[in-house]
């Protein structure tokens, strides 16, 4: 009576199903964790770089005040030469109030990114 029953083929066994389910959970968890971790690190690094930049920029601004007031490009160039020796600083530019470049220095051969000053 059992002999006549047709053999039913199982598409996916219990063991692969178990494994697939657990592996999927692990993969998703690790991906989420890694993604979150990377994003957080990225944010921290960027923020730190911006803050470091702001500190250097403040220092530069404070020191260049008299140079800008007297339009003394010699002093400004010296200051810029000193400031670009700082780690990560690629270029520095000093503009007057009308956006005219008074001094600029760059560590790289490529052109310094000149910003358009809007009043």
């Amino acid at each position: 009576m059992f002999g006549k029953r047709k053999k039913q083929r199982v598409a996916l066994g219990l063991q692969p199903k178990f494994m697939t389910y657990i592996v999927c959970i692990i993969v998703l968890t690790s991906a989420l964790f890694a993604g979150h971790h990377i994003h957080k690190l990225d944010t921290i690094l960027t923020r730190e770089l911006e803050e470091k930049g702001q500190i250097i920029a403040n220092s530069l601004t404070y020191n260049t005040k008299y140079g800008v007031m007297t339009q003394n490009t010699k002093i400004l160039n010296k200051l810029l030469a000193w400031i670009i020796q700082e780690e990560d600083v690629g270029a520095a530019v000093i503009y007057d109030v009308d956006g005219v470049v008074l001094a600029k220095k760059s560590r790289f051969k490529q052109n310094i990114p000149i910003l358009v000053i809007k009043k």
Partner: protein
Amino acid sequence: MEFKNNHQISYDKNREIPFLNILTPIRTNSTVKKQPDLSQDDRLLELEQKFEPPFPQEDTGKIIGYSQLSISLEKLIYEKQGILHAGFLIALTIIAVGTIFSFAFAQMMVGPILAMTRTTTEIAKGNLKLRVNKYAKDEIGVLGECFNSMVDSLEKRDTEIQKLNKSLEQKVKERTKKLGILNMQLRQERDKTQSYLDIAGVMIVVLDVNYNIMLINNKGCEILGYEYNEIIGENWLDNFIFPQNRQQQKTIFDGLMAGEIKSFEYNEAVLLTKDGQERIILWHNSLLKDENKKVVAILASGEDITKRKHAEQELKNYRIRLEDLVKKRTVELININKQLLEEINERKKADDALQRKHHIQSALNSMLNISIKPYNLEEMLNKILKHIVSIPWLTLQSRGAIFLVDNTTGKLVMQSYCRLPENLQIMCAQIPFGKCLCGKAAISKKIQFANTLDECHENRKEGELPHGHYCIPIISSDKILGVLNLYVKEGHRRTKDEEEFFMAIGNVLAGIIKRKQAEEGLRKARDELELRVDERTAELKTIHEQLLHIEKLSALGKLAASVAHEFNNPVYGISMVLEELAENKYLDLRDKKSISLAIRECGRISRLINSLQDFYRPSSGLASYVNIHQLIDDILHFCGKKLKISKVKIIKEFTEDMPEIFVVTDQIKQVFLNIITNAEEAMPLVSGCLSIQTRVLKDKIQVIFKDNGRGISKKNMDKIFEPFFTTKGTVKGTGLGLSVSYGIIKGHKGDIFVESNSDAGTTFTIELPIKQSKPQVEQAVAPMYYSMGGGI
């Protein structure tokens, strides 16, 4: 610009090296908080802990500049990539460890279930002795025990069923043996009956009460084309009777079973064979009843009469076709006869038409032959009319006339006639359009026909013999040229052929008349052309004479200039001698006066010679600023003697504020000389007066020469500026003076006007612009000597 925390931060990621740009305003009073003396890393760490903006600046004070700090993001990106790689490695490690763990876990959970599955499969194959292994006492262990108890009960049931099967098989064997014997007897009976039915030459079918086939003989199978087994049990009406006969057969069977139809009655029905053919069967039905007289079956025997029926139908069709064919052939023969008759008639008509065309063509050819002979129009029309009235196959009277349209009077005028009495010639000499038959033909442009002297025949006389008319219009390009009038006998019947012929004659006559008229026109045009050639030749002759006169004047001018040059030197010598003599102290007063007079006269001769040379010299074409008053005085000096001889009084009315104008001097002199000479020649000998007036207008000057001469006639006013137009005769005038003057003034962008009155003389007004660019005058304007003889 807006600054957040005194900074404006932007990213420039499109470059080869990406930058973080920090723009900070530089203020006049910005201050930086004093920072502890820490290293940069410590300071950053401290700032991160405090979460405060580093180096806070006061954002007050005036902005005096901006500082831009560009921080390279290269290192940041590199660090980020490192973090990303580390993250990936960690994630991969977690996944690998997790996979191993999940495999082990799955093995532990699924192992007992897999073992139970294998055991179950074996039991299902029939091995009921197998049992599931015992595992720990969890849910899977309980399941295994339940399964084992289920297999135990199954094994007991299987043993019982096997015992029952054995006893049942024994009973079936006994029953099968008995049935075999009965079946054999039944088969023998059936075969016997079947053989009886098969022997019969007709189709025999046994149907049950539902008309299902119970039995059929070989003949029936053969007719239907089915195997015996395919037919038995099938419904007779639904499967084998032609659909249109089904209802009829059902009615017959129903009637037979109800006793309404007798068994010996025959009927025809159409059967459908296996291959779709239709077979016509003549049926005889009878009923089979059981011992209780209950109808159990219908016995139907049928004879296949298909071939016989088809043969009858074919015979019938053949007869019908034959009858149709005979009818068709009869109709065709009748039609052919009709066509033959029509063809014969058409041939006759064509022969007649051909003959008529031949006659018409001959008549037209004769007319055309006459037309090419060198007759004038009237003679030619006479000849043609005689020819038309003498055509033998036309039933005309030998009388007729041809009228042509006179364009001046708008009437028909008789140009030729044939055998018309005199009174008719006079009466019908001119016929207005619309009057009588000819006038009606002319106005309607259609053939007018009358076979008797009725009201239409307006021009008729008392006692005239009865007759009729064909009046044929002669039309060319829809224009009526004339009318051909032909006489016919009274009661003559007009025919279409005659009218067509007359229309053809009308067309040919129109062509001939048109050609003759064109020839006449051509002849007239030739005469006119000859006349005009003569006139032009005379004109050319006059012009030639004028040119000869100009040549003579030119030669005279050259001679005068050369003689003047030769005179200049001796006159100069005489003048010198006379001046020396005048200085002699011993001369008395009378001699001194004479010598002084001689010196003045020498000067006058010298100036006259210079003037002559100036006038002969061709125009330089070079413009210069000139005092126009001086220029007029020079001209008056030049022609002073002539004016004095002619007793012409000169009145000068010069304006005081005359500016110098930019002109070619010698050309303007020429213009003034022409006008003064013309005035002098036009004025009377005794009381001639020439007034010369100058004016200054807004942007031009005016010089007005007014004389009291005989003036210019109105008919000549339009021609005076035309070249070679003169009223002085060939010897005196060239006709070029005013023409050249007009050209010079126009070349100076000026204008010249003339007013003339036969009583008050002529006024020439010359306008010249005060300021102008270089005058557009031709270099080689006609030399001065053209005007020496005067203009008009």
